[in-house]
Structures are given as C-alpha cells and as structure tokens.
C-alpha cells in the first residue's frame, strides 16, 4: 500500500513541477557591438536615384523603406534614420504590371505628397534622383535648380538652404560619423538610355569628373581629419548589366518558332536594342514590309550602337579609375559595385532555391523600369556596402538577409478568381519576356 501511494506522490510532484516551471527560456535578438554603433551614430548617404531608393520609375515610401542606405541603417541598429518619404505611389508614379501576356505595365498617377517634409534638420538619406556628381557640391538655389532641370527632387529633398546650401553642406551639417557616397551613374546613364543621342553635361567630362570628385573627397577628408568621419565610396556598374539595354534582342524573332529571323533594319547583331524600342517595334519599325513591318529602321535613340557602347564602357572605366584612386588617396572604403554586378550578371545570385538574375522582371533584381533595382536588388547593394565598411573600418554590421526582403514588383490590382476561372486559362504562356516583347 505504501509503495503505490508514494509513487503516486512522486508522479504528481514531478508532473506539477514540470507543468509549473517556466515555459521557455529567454532568447534575445542579436545586438550591435559598441564600435559599430559608434560608427553609425550619425550616418548620412549622398548619391542619386539609386541612393534615394527609386524603383519602377518612381520615388515612393514603400520603395524608400528599402533604399540601400535605409537597409544599412536598419542593419546597424540606427533608430533615427530620416528619409524624404513620399506617399505611395510617389513621383512620378510607380509602374505596375497590368498584364503578363502580352506583357503590359501601367504607371500610377503621381502622388507628390511628402510625408516627412517638416523634419527640422537635413535628411540622413540625401540621395536625389537625377543628380550627377556636380550636384553634390553645387550651391544653386534648390527651387531654381528643380525648375531648370525639370526635376522636383532637388527642392523636395534639400528643401531649404538654411539646412545647408548644397548636398555636401547638408550632409556635413549633421556631423556625420559615417558617410556613403555613390555618384557617377547619371554622368553617363542618360547617354546610354538615349541611345547616345543626349549631350552629356560638361561636368561629366572625365577630367572635370576627377576634379570635382577630388574637391568633394578633399572636403570630406578635411572633415574626417577633425571629426573622425569615415567614408565609403562606390563605383558605378557597367551599363551593359541593366535590363534596359539587355532585354530586347537585336533580331526579329519568329513568334512561331522562337528563332531569330534577321536583325532589325538599321541594327547590327552587336548593337543593343533598348527597352524604349518596343513601342516602335510594335508599330512596325525595324521590320521589313514583307514581314509585316513598315520597312523603316529603328530610330537611333532606341539603339545603342557598338561605338556608343564602347564610349559608355570607356567612360564608366575612367570614372571608376577616378573613384578607386580617390578611395586609395583618402583612405575611404571602396565599394566595388561594378565587379559585383558583373558577377551577378554572369552567374546570378543564389537565393535559397531560386536564382536571381539581371533579367528584366523575372530576374528579381531590377524593377519594372529596367534600370533601378527592386527592394531585393537594393539589399544586394546594401550588402556590398556593408562588406566594404566592415572590412575597412573593422566593424560588424550584420548583412541583410536577402530572403526577408519582400518582393516589390506589383500588380495593378488584386482580383479574385474562382477555381473555375483557372481551369479555363491557357497555361502555356509567358515562356519568355523577350519573346513576348518581340512578338508582333
């Protein structure tokens, strides 16, 4: 009799003990070490649309949240990282997919409502869409400049010269401990995306580029000498990696077989046909009358010829030489975006079970405008900065987990389909965006 009672008590006791004791252990999110926190105490980013977080041809809050400077700040535990947020769908209005087959996009109407305009100090993210290198130090009145350049962002982002008379001055006014600098893309990009028809700004001359960058870097170094500011500067990617120049093949494709028939009229097989060519191709340009076209050559501004490609590549190369030399001279961290994007262009980026590529839309890295990265692409850029900064300055900013970034290519509207609708759908489409584009 005693034994079983005793056993019962033992089991009751053990059971109650296990049931009653603390359900689970404490776990804590990883924290940022002190040296890293100190480096990021005041982080300012300057640059252009890539820095601003523009994607799918618009600057809007949902994209700005995933700008690479915002991601770096988040990874580094920066709590007060301020950006010139603009309510969705932003300026000039985000592009979204209207239909997959045939592929069609639609731009939302602009919503130029700033959400953070009353911030009584300059923004941490001073990336200005459309800015060239010279704009970093240009003291022109912001409103005047926006009017002259037909670009609202100078005025929207820099706001008031009381906060600083230039991008550089507004950055330094924040007593930055870390600055990232990424300029130069726009000093060549407009030439490339216009098929070599745009006249480049005089300041985009390679010698002037070097002189201006040296002036900017010298001023930063001077500040660094006083305050201990650390600087990371990024070089610019080859234009040949962006879907804008890589999506449309130079050939007319037979929609029946998917095989190339002949080059578009006025195009050699080595030329790059730009995304802007699509509306002309759809009208019959570049296609002989015998094949149903209008027999006219594709206009020059939608084709980047071999010579033009060479010119662009030379400029990029010279700009990057300048950037590398300056990083070396002033002991800045050099962020080698060019090499990284060439690698991704060649091999893709393995993300779990998926491979991200530089392909238009489906690749996952570039947004619907074919030039600017998606939020995911922005994460890849942030990680390049983080690696370079960690290595150069001996800090430990955790890298962005790319998989946790939500996809940012959006559809025009969500519709509800019943299971019956799916049964009626043709499943053998959307083989290839390129084919869709060149089917007429």
């Amino acid at each position, binding site marked *: 009799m005693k034994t079983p009672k005793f056993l019962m008590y033992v089991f009751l006791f053990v*059971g109650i003990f*296990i049931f009653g004791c603390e359900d*689970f252990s404490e776990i804590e999110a990883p924290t940022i070490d002190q040296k890293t926190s100190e480096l990021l105490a005041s982080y300012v980013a300057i640059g252009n649309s890539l820095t601003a977080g523009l994607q799918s041809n618009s600057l809007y809050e949902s994209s700005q949240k995933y700008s690479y400077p915002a991601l770096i700040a988040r990874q580094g535990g920066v709590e007060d990282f301020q950006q010139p947020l603009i309510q969705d769908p932003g300026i000039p209005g985000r592009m979204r997919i209207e239909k*997959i087959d045939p592929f069609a996009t639609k731009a939302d109407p602009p919503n130029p409502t700033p959400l953070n305009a009353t911030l009584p100090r300059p923004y941490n993210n001073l990336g200005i869409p459309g800015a060239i290198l010279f704009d970093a130090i240009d003291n022109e009145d912001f409103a005047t400049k926006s009017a002259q350049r037909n670009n609202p962002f100078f005025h929207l982002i820099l706001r008031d010269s009381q906060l600083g008379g230039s991008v550089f001055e507004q950055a330094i006014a924040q007593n930055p401990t870390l600055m990232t600098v990424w300029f130069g893309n726009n000093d060549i990009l407009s030439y490339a995306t216009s098929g070599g028809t745009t006249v480049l700004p005089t300041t985009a001359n390679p010698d002037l580029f070097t002189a201006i960058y040296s002036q900017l870097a010298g001023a930063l170094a001077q500040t660094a000498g006083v305050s201990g500011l650390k600087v990371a500067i990024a070089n610019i990617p080859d234009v040949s990696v962006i879907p804008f120049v890589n999506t449309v093949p130079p050939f007319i494709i037979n929609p029946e077989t998917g095989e190339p028939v002949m080059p578009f009229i006025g195009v050699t097989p080595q030329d790059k046909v730009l995304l802007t060519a699509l509306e002309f191709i759809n009208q019959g340009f570049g296609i002989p009358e015998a094949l149903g076209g209008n027999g006219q050559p594709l206009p020059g501004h939608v084709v980047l010829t071999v010579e033009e490609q060479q010119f662009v590549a030379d400029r990029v190369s010279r700009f990057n030489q300048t950037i590398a030399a300056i990083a070396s001279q002033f002991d800045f961290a050099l962020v080698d975006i060019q090499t990284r994007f060439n690698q991704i262009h060649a091999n893709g980026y393995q993300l779990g079970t998926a491979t991200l590529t530089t392909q238009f839309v489906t690749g996952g890295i570039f947004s619907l405008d074919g030039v600017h990265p998606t939020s995911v692409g922005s994460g890849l850029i942030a990680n390049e900065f983080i690696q370079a900064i960690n290595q150069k300055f001996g800090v430990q900013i955790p890298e962005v987990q790319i998989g946790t970034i939500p996809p940012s*290519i959006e559809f025009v509207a969500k*519709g509800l389909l019943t299971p019956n609708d799916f049964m009626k*759908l043709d499943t053998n489409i959307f083989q290839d965006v390129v084919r869709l584009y060149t089917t007429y």
Partner: protein
Amino acid sequence: MNTIIKNGLLVLIILLGVIPVYSGGFQVNEHGARATGMAGAVYATLNDASAVHFNPGALSFMDGTHIMFGTTLIFPKGKFRGPFPSVDQTDMESPMSYPSVFYASHTLSNGLAFGFGMFNPYGSGTKWPDNWVGRNLAMESSLRTFFFNPTVSYRVTDYMGIAVGFNYVYSDIDLQQGVSFEPTFAGNGDVRLTGSGSGIGWNIGLYTNITPEFSAGLAFRSGVGLDLEGDAEYTDIPRQIGEAGLLPGDKIEASVTLPANLFAGIAYTGIDKLTIGLGFQYVFWSSVEEIALTFTDTGNEDALVFNYVNSYIARIGFEYQVNSDLAVRAGYLFDKNPTPDEYMRPGIPDADRHGFTLGVGYQINDKIGVDFGYLFIRFNERRIENSNVEYKTGARMNGVYNVSGHLPSINFKFNL
C-alpha cells in the same frame, strides 16, 4: 510554366504542412483512457477491449464479449519565436481535436477470439494566425486517419496467444496556407488543399503469461501506404498570375507511407494489488521521407521533404487496485522525436517530449465500467538553427518552438 518554375524565376510556395502535436511526428497514441492513465505501458496487460490495438494476442485470454468506446480531447499549446534574427513570438491558436476509439471483442471458450477496433493513430491539427510570418508554411492544418481493424486471436497454449489482423485506413486532410510569388512579385494569396484517400495494412500480435506474475506482449503494425486525391483552391491571388496560368494546378494527388510500429511490453503483478507495466514502442518513421505531390491537371510535381528518422517511445505505468471497483493509475513516457532539425515545419512542431499521466478506473457494476485518463505532455524546447525549410524564398524558418498539451480522456466499457 514548367520552365519558369524550374528556372526558379517564379517560386510558388505551395507546400503541404501537415500537423500534430501529441506524439513524435504526427502520431497519436491515445487509444483508451486506461492505457493513457498508464502512459500506454499496457502491451502486456489485459482486461479490456483496447487489447485489439495494444496487444491483440491477449484477446484469446479474455472471456465473453467486451465493448469499449471513448475519446481523448487534445488541447495543444504552442509558441514560435523567430525567424532568427527576429525573436518575435507567435502563439499557436489551439484547435481542440478528439481522436476516438471503438473496440469490440468476443472470446470463445476454445481460445479463439474475434476483435474489431476503430482508432485514429495519426493526425490532429494545428492552427497558426492567418497573417503570421510562417503563413506560407502552415496556417491551418488538419490530418485525420481512421483505422478499421478486424483481428483474430487464438490461444495456442495455456500460456501463449497469437493474433493477426487487417487494417483498412481512411484518411483526409485539410491544409490552408499562404501563397506568395517570391522573389519577384509582390502580393500574397491563400491556398486550401483538401483531399482524402485510403490504404491497407496488417498487424500481428503475441501475448504470453510467462509466470503467474509476469506477462509479456509483442505486436507489430505494418506501414500503410496512403494515396490521397483532392483539390487546390486559391483565393486572393493577383489576377495577372491566374490569367497567365502560373498557379501549379487545381487537382492534386499525394502519397505518403504511414510508418510501421513495433510494440513490446512486460507487466508484473507480483506486488499486492499493483500492476507495473513497461512498454517500448519502436516507430519506423524513416518510411516518411517525403510527401510526393502531383498536380494532375498540369503535371507539375512537388514534394514535401520530411526525412524522418526511426524513433521510439519508452513507457512505464502503474495501476493500483484500491478495491474491487476502483483502480488508480499513473505513468510516464519519453517520446523521441523523429524530425531532423533541417526539416522541422511549423505545421508539425516536434521535439523530444515527456508525458506524465494519471488515471482512474471505476467499475459501476458487473457489466459497466468507466475510465478517466489525463496526460500532460511537455515538449523540450526546440531551437532550430539550420533549417532547410524556407518560409519565403531564401529565408529559413530558424527559431525556437515551445509546445505542450493537455489530453484528458474518457472511455466506457461493457462486459456482456
């Protein structure tokens, strides 16, 4: 479409996330309140019709007609913290489930016995909040299996009985989870997979009275191959995705092999009024490598990888006969989980677990008795750092799971 999926250009996360909570993997071992009270260490004891499940060889040692039916209420409780580096907590919503049993047996005086059992050895359900971080892996998951098990037992000698049985198994599933179009397109939708199917299996048993004080039982239940058929229903999917035919399909076939089980136990009745049972259950979980999915209308295929490893449950139970009408019971079990860290899914949160049981049996009169059982099961905290399961493309479901459950049970028995 196939090209796109193969290239990983568009990854539709449509994964079955099956379930449960109460035994390793998705097994349920509650098949009678008396057994529950003794932590299931009843493979070598006999006195009711649940022997059909636990030790059919013992049926031939019983007499007359026995009927038993009952149910177990399962109240699971679970938390997930993660995915790392986040430590945000999500509480599992806890749907109650109730695996139930019915047994009948009749033993002839010549030692030939017939038995029939209906029980639910696999299944149950979990529910996570609709908008939680792991929604693409599991929202609401329910799996049920119904075993219909006629069996024949024969007393070969005065001290040994054997049994053989047949199992018809019916199963249904109902899985709801999120769908997304990572890493490219924004937007989320839901998918609900429903299906049912059946399979067959067999079982054998051996029971022996070694001495008046010692008895032993051995039983084996075969694996059961299940073929399920059903439908996928999509809701809230972006119109363009549907128009372009980028969903995997509407009609689904799935197959899975439920594991074989080996039961072994001894019982000792040498102490006055006390029965001590020891039990060991070996579960051949390695048959559950994956659930293969085929979308029959499109030909797309997918598979849910489990890669379970064989595992065991060790049991000890006590029954004390207070008087001729009243018995009290207690027990403990340790259940080794079959789920490798890499393949753990929130639809089946799993860990090594400890079970503590109590029970009471009361004989109302000569013919009618009732049993109450209670099992508290506590999972060891499970910390996953090397998951292969992606809750979004390229984002792994690493985190910490804490699960426990309360399982009260009741059964009625009739000796006719």
